[in-house]
């Protein structure tokens, strides 16, 4: 069992928790993820490591309350325990040789982008961050990004906070005006990453994307997290859990990844309703 040390809502649907897991805290690097189970009959879900405190032996996770499992997780309070917490899994984000980086986070993906931005900042790279949200109510981690970015752009789809537009707008403006980056790293909804990659390609800037497919074991055993890379005209199957989660954005087949992520859409809907009923009844 793993203890929830702190719990803090970041907005109406996004929650941050610190979990006591010293072995994981000791090893985790930016870009890696963990897998957790809330309770004995729970499913295994992957969540990216949002930070660690080696001295306290804690790992920070940030999750959006979207399905049955995240609802159950959100029903737990600080001081309570979750069943399983495994990691760190996947490869850490590659930082070698990158002196100037553009980090682009979308929505709850900002939680994953943040430790990557912090790591580059720590290593002395120039960090330009773009964070985008649907509207002002769901803006998260702005202060944290400001602290580790040389420049920060905040965008909302409806213009209710920061500037109006999606994250590709400021990226294209910068690239058009001749600004150079060693690397663009983007983390967020698949469709957003797809368009960031298209923009990066247009200006010939390398682009890393962080994939978050459905997975079970997270150690290379089930193959559920597979995705396809188009490499020199050849299609190659990769496993996000052991080969990723970071991939060269130019190569990822996003349409396939988007389709695969919706495999259990039906089931998730039912599970959400079920969890709602369960949690509501519990509260009565």
């Amino acid at each position, binding site marked *: 069992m793993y203890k929830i040390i702190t719990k803090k809502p970041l907005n109406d649907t996004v929650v941050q928790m610190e979990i006591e897991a010293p072995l994981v805290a000791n090893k985790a690097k930016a870009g890696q993820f963990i897998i957790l189970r809330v309770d004995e009959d729970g499913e295994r879900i992957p969540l990216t490591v949002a930070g660690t405190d080696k001295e306290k032996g804690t790992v920070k996770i940030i999750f959006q309350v979207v399905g049955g499992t995240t609802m159950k997780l959100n029903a737990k309070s600080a001081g309570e325990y979750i069943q399983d917490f495994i990691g760190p899994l996947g490869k850490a984000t590659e930082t070698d040789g990158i002196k100037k980086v553009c980090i682009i986070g979308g929505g709850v993906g900002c939680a994953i982008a943040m430790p990557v931005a912090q790591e580059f900042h720590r290593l002395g790279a120039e960090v330009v961050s773009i964070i985008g949200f649907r509207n002002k109510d769901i803006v998260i981690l702005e202060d944290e990004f400001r602290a580790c970015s040389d420049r920060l752009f905040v965008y909302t789809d409806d213009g209710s906070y920061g500037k109006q537009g999606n994250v590709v707008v400021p990226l294209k403006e910068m690239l058009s005006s001749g600004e150079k980056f060693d690397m663009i790293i983007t983390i967020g909804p698949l469709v957003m990453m797809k368009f960031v990659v298209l923009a990066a390609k247009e200006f010939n800037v390398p682009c890393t994307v962080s994939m978050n497919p459905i997975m079970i*074991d997270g150690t290379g055993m089930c193959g559920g997290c597979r*995705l*396809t890379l188009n490499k020199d005209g050849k299609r190659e199957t990769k496993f996000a859990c052991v080969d990723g989660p970071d991939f060269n954005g130019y190569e990822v087949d996003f349409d396939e990844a988007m389709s695969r992520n919706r495999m259990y859409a039906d089931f998730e809907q039912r599970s959400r309703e079920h969890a709602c009923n369960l949690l509501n009844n519990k509260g009565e």
Partner: protein
Amino acid sequence: MAIVPKKHEMPTQSAEIRARNFNEVALGYSAEVAVNEAKRCLNCKNRPCVAGCPVNVNIPDFISLVKTGDFEGAYKIINKTSSLPAVCGRVCPQETQCEQRCTLGIKFEPVGIGRLERFVADYHNSAAQTTEQKPKSNGIKVAVVGSGPSGLTCAGDLAKKGYEVSVFEALHTAGGVLVYGIPEFRLPKSIVKKEVDGLKALGVDIETNVVIGKTLTVDELFDAGYKAVFIGSGAGLPNFMNIKGESLKGVYSANEFLTRSNLMKAYREDCDTPIMKGGFVAVVGGGNVAMDAARTALRLGAEKVYIVYRRSMDEIPARKEEVEHAMEEGIDFRLLCNPVEILGYNNPDNPRDVKNGFVSGIKCIKMELGEPDAKGRRRPVPIAGSEFELKVDTVIMAIGTSPNPLIKNTTEGLNVNDHGGIIVDENGLTSKLGVYAGGDAVTGAATVISAMGAGKLAAKSIDEYLSNKNA
């Protein structure tokens, strides 16, 4: 006394009933039937069966005690060499091991050794309450990576010798393939739990949720005071055919399908883990894993399940009993067939059609057997123009696995072969001092019993290594 020419039949749930539940298929011998089956053993002098067993269970001796009704005594004999008798009695391919060599089998059916082993183990587990005594510790720490058959065997043997053994398991439940791979109807999980609890009673410490190669490395285990390490991390990454359509929704590796059902309990209504149930299912492959996947799909409510296998029944690698059970349950065997493409649903008029991107069928080609390959199995060759389609909703690829790279990539000095399997010598020693390995991590996908044999050998070698070191 006249020889009974056939094995006493194993009582089973009837095919129609069991095809729709997850309870165990085979129900086990009664004491009376077990004694009668044991009486078929000729107790021949040269005991070929013992050599046919990867862990050399003293088969004629335990059968002799079954004849006299001393079932607990029989258990003690098996347990001397096998740490998981209730498991082996259920999942060993006896027809290619002990029973294949049985003298009685030359003229008649061989003695039902596996059935007797199962009976004896189940008798022990239900009747006798002798808890294992924790041996006196010798204070030497040994780490075992993976809690599958090889790891559990190695841990058990070392614990009996007084070593302080820690087993590190990546998943949340101990048992490895016995838990995530082999279904409940073939190996009830309560049996695996009993075996694991037995090890705990011997003082073995089991640490779940620790991924060696990620959470800790092999070198860090030595830093933490472990004097030797056994790697039994299993087979790893599932293979795919690299044909069109393998990324469609509804295509699973057998590992994923079975893990969802077995480990994550997706067959239960109250479980949080989703799985595609019902409809038409094609399982590609002819091994035990393919049979397990097909029969699981059936029990999850499939209307029709096909096995698509590229060779013929003579070459099928699954245990005979599993193939027979699958056929009785109505699995449709499409032999000498190979998939060439998985077909997907795509509504050109509505890109938002929820069915888009799901499997709609599998296109196969008929095969014929050509010349034998290097292993002596006749190579299947496609028959030009013989393509046909099966309408299915789910496709499960059960065509083997490749070794997992996590440990290799994080362990300096650990050599692997071209296939990624860890290289060991005849004692189970790897290229790294103090590091031993066995099971599927070494051989690629094989059997539970061969993994146990490797775990046993490694335990012996580790004991010798550490005894010499400390002498």
